[in-house]
């Protein structure tokens, strides 16, 4: 794998990039607006969004690139983490809401609710919300994965039910009586841990936090995939029954990684929401999860670095294109996916690092390398 070829120092260098970049951009954004080096606030927000997506992409690459689980539902874990953060932010609003209710968020007052639903309890504490940000996506992934992997659902079937999962959640969150703000979702946030979300310093801080989390999880994933454990994952991806007959409980490995990956995605969502300022059910849209898979494919599946690069580049392209020609974006995305699948099976990262190694491989291995690029499972 490419990140294996990066070596320890290479990986540390890669890991340093998001952190260093966000610190630099964050600090520059705090310069006076008339300074030549000043970075405007919208750039900070955009970069923060891209990097939160990069964390989602990393989580997708971990399960798809290394275990062969093509999850088309990771957007749901991202959104759940986002909602958990959103609930905390809602409760921080306090009496500053339109209706001024000290406990109930505006939408509940609007719905004439008299008291806070039980599942909103605790979200006024950041520590509790932080726990839920990982526990809720993690628990859902665990239950879902337990059922799916135990019955050995894999390949296309698994992909389809992950789509169904995120679709079902979207429908549920659209309902007003679920108590998550219906189709408007959660918004009008004021502050986080006492810091005003509109303040430049808070935005810079959130950006740096996102960079730090991304760097951290890149290193964790790298370590995980390079270890003996990671070798078992790749073994499962490439020859599941061989691994099983060696005595490995494949379903347990899958469950563990799937759950961990969902937690990562949840953290991505939690970092995304305060920077964007809103979370609504559209985050559960099945297309979002598919997009995340495309980022990984474009960047280079099974490389970790590629997933992050892909997320940033594709989303940058999306920002540019939807600004100028919003109606063509989906076609561009679809075309990109087909192009990458056919002509760049190792993605962008593969173009750079793979070329030399690639040429030195016998034709047979080359074919395996390419053939593996988009297989869902075995």
């Amino acid at each position: 794998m490419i990140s294996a070829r990066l070596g320890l120092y290479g990986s540390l260098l890669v890991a340093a990039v998001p952190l260093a970049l966000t610190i630099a951009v964050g600090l520059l954004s705090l310069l006076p607006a008339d300074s030549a080096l000043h970075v405007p606030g919208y750039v900070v927000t955009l970069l923060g969004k891209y990097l939160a997506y990069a964390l989602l992409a990393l989580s997708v690459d971990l399960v798809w690139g290394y275990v062969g689980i093509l999850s088309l539902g990771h957007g749901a874990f991202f959104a759940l983490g986002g909602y958990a953060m959103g609930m905390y932010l809602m409760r921080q609003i306090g009496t500053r809401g339109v209706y001024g209710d000290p406990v109930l968020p505006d939408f509940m007052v609007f719905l004439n609710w008299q008291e806070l639903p039980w599942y909103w309890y605790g979200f006024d504490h950041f520590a509790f919300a932080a726990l839920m940000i990982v526990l809720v996506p993690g628990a859902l992934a665990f239950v879902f994965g337990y059922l799916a992997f135990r019955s050995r659902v894999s390949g296309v079937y698994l992909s389809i039910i992950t789509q169904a999962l995120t679709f079902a959640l979207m429908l549920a969150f659209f309902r007003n009586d679920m108590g998550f703000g219906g189709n408007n979702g959660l918004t009008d946030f004021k502050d986080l841990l006492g810091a005003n979300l509109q303040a430049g310093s808070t935005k810079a801080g959130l950006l740096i936090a996102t960079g730090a989390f991304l760097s951290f999880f890149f290193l964790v994933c790298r370590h995980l995939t390079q270890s003996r454990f990671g070798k078992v994952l790749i073994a499962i991806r490439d020859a599941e029954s061989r691994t099983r007959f060696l005595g490995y409980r494949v379903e347990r490995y899958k469950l563990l990684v799937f759950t961990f990956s969902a937690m990562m995605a949840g953290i991505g969502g939690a970092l995304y929401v305060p920077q964007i300022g809103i979370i609504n059910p559209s985050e559960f849209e099945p297309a979002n999860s598919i997009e995340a898979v495309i980022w990984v494919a474009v960047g280079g599946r099974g490389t970790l670095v590629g997933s992050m690069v892909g997320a940033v580049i594709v989303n940058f392209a999306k920002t540019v294109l939807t600004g100028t020609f919003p109606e063509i974006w989906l076609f561009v995305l679809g075309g990109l996916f087909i192009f990458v699948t056919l002509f760049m099976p190792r993605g962008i990262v593969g173009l750079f690092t793979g070329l030399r190694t690639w040429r030195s491989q016998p034709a047979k291995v080359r074919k395996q390398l390419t053939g593996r690029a988009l297989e869902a499972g075995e």
Partner: protein
Amino acid sequence: MNAAPVATIGGTPESMQPLLYLDGISVSFDGFKALNGLSLVLDPGEMRAVIGPNGAGKTTMMDVITGKTRPDSGKAMFREADLTQLDEAEIAALGIGRKFQKPTVFEMHSVFDNLLLALKADRRPSRVLFASTRAIERERADGILEMVRLTGMRGRMAGELSHGQKQWLEIGILLAQEPELLLVDEPAAGMTDAETEQTTELLRRINETRSVIVVEHDMTFVRALAVKVTVLHEGSVLAEGSLEHVSNDPRVIEVYLGR
């Protein structure tokens, strides 16, 4: 059964408890009987060759023994363990290793890593997560590499190996598990004559310490093994005994050798 007395490597007295005991195993796929009352007894230390035309049920028999396929009826015991109640991982842990008909190795891992992953060890994720490669493991993997003649390919990706070398690597993978019984499905398929001969040699060496069931089509190969032969046909045992004995059996000649 109709077993004629033959010399088997590590031949055992009648009173000895069999290592593997299959009795009246039936498996059907959508009404088609892939195995039909199959019975087979393997003694500890024995090597057995299983032959039979395509579709006779040889691979399905291995599927039953390794827990991949549950029989509709019949008994499958490995010593005291009821194989029909266990799953693949549990059966592997009992000491049964399996080579697939289509050679299956971890192509994106180095040859050495293939063996490392197969070495007998705690397979629980929590243990594997914090496992580091110990010197003794390296030694054992290297020992196996030598045995399967792949020392020179140690650092290469398994995907780069030739077909024959993959077969050997997979046998090496089995050995790394330290199984008591090896099930080897068509090891000589696609091999050159020289490779086939080396494979015979390898299986003989393995059989010095382990029991083996080898499924094979290649009669020269089976002849060279010189062990007791079980002939399968349409899911049950047609004949059993030395190759000499079964190849003179008129029913065997009719369904298999005669064609």
